């Protein structure tokens, strides 16, 4: 009887320790999850800022100005455009 009790006691202690460990483990994982969540949020904010930046740099007016003044580009005159259709060169000369 005493032997059985000792075994049960040992099992109970083992279970208790197991609970503590798994609880600790769960908390650690949860902390990691929270950290990733915060990270995701931070990245989302950064994404918004980068998007803003991208559209500011890519403003039509700015692109056009650079294309014209620095790169010496201009819109192609329509008489230099050859339109190809499925039937071959179009009627545009």
């Amino acid at each position, binding site marked *: 009887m005493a032997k059985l009790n000792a075994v049960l006691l040992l099992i109970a202690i083992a279970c208790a320790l197991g609970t503590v460990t798994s609880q600790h483990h769960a*908390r650690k994982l*949860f*902390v990691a999850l*929270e950290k990733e969540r915060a990270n995701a949020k931070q990245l989302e*904010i950064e994404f*918004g*800022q980068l*998007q*803003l930046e991208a*559209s*500011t740099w890519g*403003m*039509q*007016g700015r692109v056009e100005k650079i294309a014209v003044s620095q790169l010496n580009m201009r*819109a192609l*005159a*329509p*008489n230099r*455009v050859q*339109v190809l*259709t499925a039937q071959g060169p*179009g*009627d*545009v*000369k």
Partner: protein
Amino acid sequence: MKSLASPVLRLHFPIWRSRLLLGILMLWLVGLTARAVYLQGLNNDFLQQKGESRYSRVVEIGAHRGRITDRNGEPLAISTAVESVWASPGDFRADAEQTKRLARLLKVEPDELTRRVADTRREFVYLRRQLPPEHAARVVELNIPGVFLQREYRRFYPAGEVVSHVIGITDIDEKGQEGLELAFQDTLVGKPGSRRVIKDRLGRIVEDVESIRVPQQGRDLTLSIDLRIQYLAYRELKAALEQHRAKAGGIVVLDARTGEVLAMANLPSYNPNSRGRIDPQRSRNRALVDLFEPGSTLKPFAVAAALDAGRIRPQTVIQTGTGRLTIGRATISDVHPAGAITVEEVIAKSSNVGAAKIALDLPAETLWTLFSRSGFGTVPQSGFPGEGSGRLRAHRTWKPIEQATMSYGHGISVSLLQLARSYTIFAGNGELLPVTLLKRTEPVAGTPAITPRTALVVRNMLEMAVHPGGTGPKAQVVGYRVGGKTGTAHKLENGRYAASRYVSSFVGMAPVSDPRLIVAVMIDEPSAGQHYGGAVAAPVFREVVSAALRTLSVPLDAPTMNVKLPPADAPVIREEVWIAHDEAGPRG
């Protein structure tokens, strides 16, 4: 008993004293047990709460406002996180040097800063709202007690003044104040949530206990606007306004197949990113809110009504005589008397007398019905707050002179969007399309206004109007067939037509073989010498259409030699609306 060395132990007391002591101790124990049972079992809420407050916290879950993008996903309005710096004056401790550095970071005067934190009875004062996060990080580095950050969102508009009238603005708390920001406040707004968590001694969240309120992120809004075309339209309108020293202007570009607004620009404009006070004169979306008398751009409607009623055919000859037509006490006149001209030429040369004669031949109700079916006098229901309905009086109250003037767009008022929309009946197969500022995902059904055949005939007349001999040759585009109608109207001032103030307009479509775009341009009070719609507004149409069609990769429908300009010494075909007697002036 010898061992009892202490003399105290040798004393003998009566037995009741020890009993009494035991009794008191027992009572005390019972009292403690009862109190423990009471606190632990019976009335444990308070303590439980106190215990919980040591480790459990309610944290806010932020929700941001939805983005507004154009039809291709280009951002037009984005909320991004910023930090507001606040202080608790009671806890604020900073020496002179720290205060100076903090003031510099916050861009406020040191005195102002000291004044704000002086009132120690307050627990919360904003030191500076909406700093960029990297600035805020430097504030944290100063490590001043009593200074905290609060995350907020701020709205940014990358396209700035180009599309500000459509988007509108929000206030500092991100509540929509104008434009679509106001109209779609309920869609865009995010509702912050909260949850209860357990924090450990390091302040880390270690367990989620419950969710108190689920946060609701703001939904995104995709507009029908195409930023590329919007930018083009804005640029060309601005150039025209500067060239003609005009007071204001507006342009609307519609997708002729779906009724979506591809671009809507107004001038003067404003920068929605600056937080200063905005002049209402600049922030008004003129194209939607302001009404004007459209002038000759309405002539195609009178002709379409007569064609549909079978009264005329395109080749029918109208006798305009000496270019004067007297109705009652008023006289309608043409600037350039043309004699006998066909219906096509009435549109091309923009003859007032011709249009009036065609209109007078119709029952008032027929004309009114077409105007009404073309969307005049009713709100276009684009979803924009404060859009104008225009004025179209009931046909029973029309006098003959009014019926005549209405045929060339006087005595009726419209918004620029209504005018652009009304031309959908000519661009398609005679149906008026509903307009929208939001991107459509499903095909739309229009409401029939004229027969498909009439639409085609009028479309061809509109093309003639931009050829030499018409009023708008400057609207021609290389490589595409275009059609449109010029308009030049005197402005109404105090119920009378002003002699030298005009509204120049042009409404057209392209390519005529299969219209994709409808563009309406309105320029208010051009004052650099020219004021005809064909000279002021038509070139804007040309520039916007040619660039927009290329942007949309619309195949050419004409050879690139198609532009036929009248010889340089040819007289400009002028159009002008002038009523000799003021009888026709709209009143009431």
